[in-house]
């Protein structure tokens, strides 16, 4: 007969009071500051760095003595995860803070509505209107090319593609996701050099360069979204006598539209800040160029790069330009969220 262990009552474990971790945290920070006084005096980053180490050790040891081994492991894991989160947040917050604080000096309605015609030397006037228009042009052209191309390519891969061709496309898309942006710029540059000669400069060249970068990102994200659509829905539509193409348009794309919108927005955000390919394809201009097919055009990333390189009052314009770029991306994100909220099935919200 098998030996059955006698029943054990569920043990009550002693828990640390809820204020204890905070007390340990404050103690650790104070201790860290005191340690630094022994050296050259405390710095903020130093206190937090050493304090974090002390806190991790202290909370684990305290928990182990009071709460036992299992809960102390839980505390340790929670602490490490939280620290990783905070660590990841530092560059983000610092970036937003720097751009905001440096960009706000020049940012304003006049910055958004004037171009750089007649601005030179140490003048503080001038703005990025021409660069905003240019960025919208170039990114718009890239989107017009990439979004349909990418979506159709993803539909092929998910719904039709099988065998060698589909595998080859998948590999190529993966490779294209990784190509350096300067290569895309050189590609577009040489393409138009061969077609129209060396004198031709236009927004469309930059648009093509960005489209080369954007298409694989669109393909990848849309493909993921289409694969998430349950096969049952496709079968339900087929069983109703709906042809395949209508099933794709009205069921698959319709169900995945929220995810597709998000994916497309990520792709746009990915290329809107590209500098290198635009430097060699569209260059920079001082005034607004309304013609996408003729002449140099300014774009925000190149504008920022040029202004920052000049230094002095121009550097302020560079920060303001960077702030403008971030705001544009944020607005696009907001629109994407609204669109995906509007389209997502009720109940899944």
């Amino acid at each position, binding site marked *: 007969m098998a030996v059955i262990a006698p029943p054990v009552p569920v043990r009550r474990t002693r828990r640390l009071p809820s204020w204890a971790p905070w007390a340990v945290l404050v103690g650790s920070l104070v201790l860290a500051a005191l340690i630094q006084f022994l050296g050259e005096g405390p710095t903020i980053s130093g206190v937090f760095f050493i304090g974090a180490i002390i806190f991790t050790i202290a909370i684990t040891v305290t928990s182990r003595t009071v709460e036992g081994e299992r809960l102390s492991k839980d505390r340790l894991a929670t602490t490490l995860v939280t620290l990783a989160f905070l660590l990841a947040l530092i560059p983000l917050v610092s970036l937003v803070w720097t751009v905001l604080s440096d960009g706000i000096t020049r940012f304003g309605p006049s910055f958004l509505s004037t171009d750089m015609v007649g601005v030179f030397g140490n003048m503080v006037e001038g703005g990025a209107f021409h660069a905003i228009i240019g960025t919208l042009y170039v990114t718009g052209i890239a989107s017009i090319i990439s979004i349909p191309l990418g979506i159709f390519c993803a539909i092929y891969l998910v719904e039709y593609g099988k065998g060698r061709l589909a595998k080859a496309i998948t590999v190529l898309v993966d490779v294209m996701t990784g190509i350096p942006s300067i290569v895309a710029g050189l590609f577009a540059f040489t393409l138009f050099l061969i077609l129209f000669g060396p004198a031709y400069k236009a927004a469309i060249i930059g648009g093509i360069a960005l489209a080369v970068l954007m298409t694989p990102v669109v393909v990848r994200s849309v493909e993921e979204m289409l694969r998430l659509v349950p096969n049952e829905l496709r079968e339900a539509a087929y069983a109703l006598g709906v042809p395949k193409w209508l099933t794709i348009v009205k069921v698959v794309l319709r169900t995945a539209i929220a995810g597709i919108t998000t994916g497309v927005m990520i792709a746009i955000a990915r290329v809107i800040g590209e500098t290198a390919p635009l430097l060699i394809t569209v260059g920079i201009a001082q005034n607004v160029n309304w013609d996408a097919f003729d002449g140099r055009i300014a774009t925000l990333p190149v504008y920022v790069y040029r202004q920052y390189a000049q230094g002095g009052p121009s550097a302020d314009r560079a920060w303001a330009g960077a702030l403008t770029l971030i705001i544009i991306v944020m607005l696009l994100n907001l629109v994407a969220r609204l669109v995906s909220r509007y*389209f997502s099935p009720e109940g899944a919200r």
Partner: protein
Amino acid sequence: MSKRIDVSDLNAYYGDFLAVEGVDMVIEPRTVTALIGPSGCGKSTFLRTLNRMHEVIPGAYVTGKAVMDGQDLYGPGIDPVEVRRQVGMVFQRPNPFPTMSIEDNVLAGVKLNNRRMKKADADELVEGALTAANLWNEVKDRLDRPGSSLSGGQQQRLCIARAIAVQPQVLLMDEPCSALDPISTLAIEDLISELKNDYTIVIVTHNMQQAARVSDRTGFFNIAGTGRPGHLIEMDDTTTMFSTPTVKATEDYISGRFG
């Protein structure tokens, strides 16, 4: 609106793998035909060959004949889409379209096919199909709510309403109650008994009592072993099958000695 299907020497493949071999079967109009058998014996695969849903799976194909109305469903020049408009299907798991309201789900066969329909006709069709599916009284006040807001049993009846709204000749049901509780199951079984006045129904089920309750004819599928093709062992009137089957394996399966 019901038709007879004559299946002869039908084989279903998944790539190189022969899943169902040599099925000969007559499906009578205005009756309920139940297909029973252990898991993996090819009942569902066979069912899906009847409206050409089998070939939707990559690499899957069918040889043999399935004649409905003097027309071989697998004959040359037959459009699978047309077949599916005649032979509707209800799946194991309720699968209403999540982006559509209850009303739009019923009208899915019309709307997804880009056909125009007058509002009055559409309303009539919705009410008719939902009434036929015994769901009208439960949902008539919330037709604009999403289909996914219903309970599992209601969703399955919604799927049945959606299938009969395209007015098929034959209705295939692939274990329509296996995800449902006993009360919803009863509702669906009652519904099947009513629907058989108008439709030819083929139902796959794992539940022997259900087969005995709802069906007029029963077919027993079995498989010799894993990796071997499934066969139709025997087929007869349900009462005969459940009282005096001719094959030993059928008796063993029905009495619960294996499977």
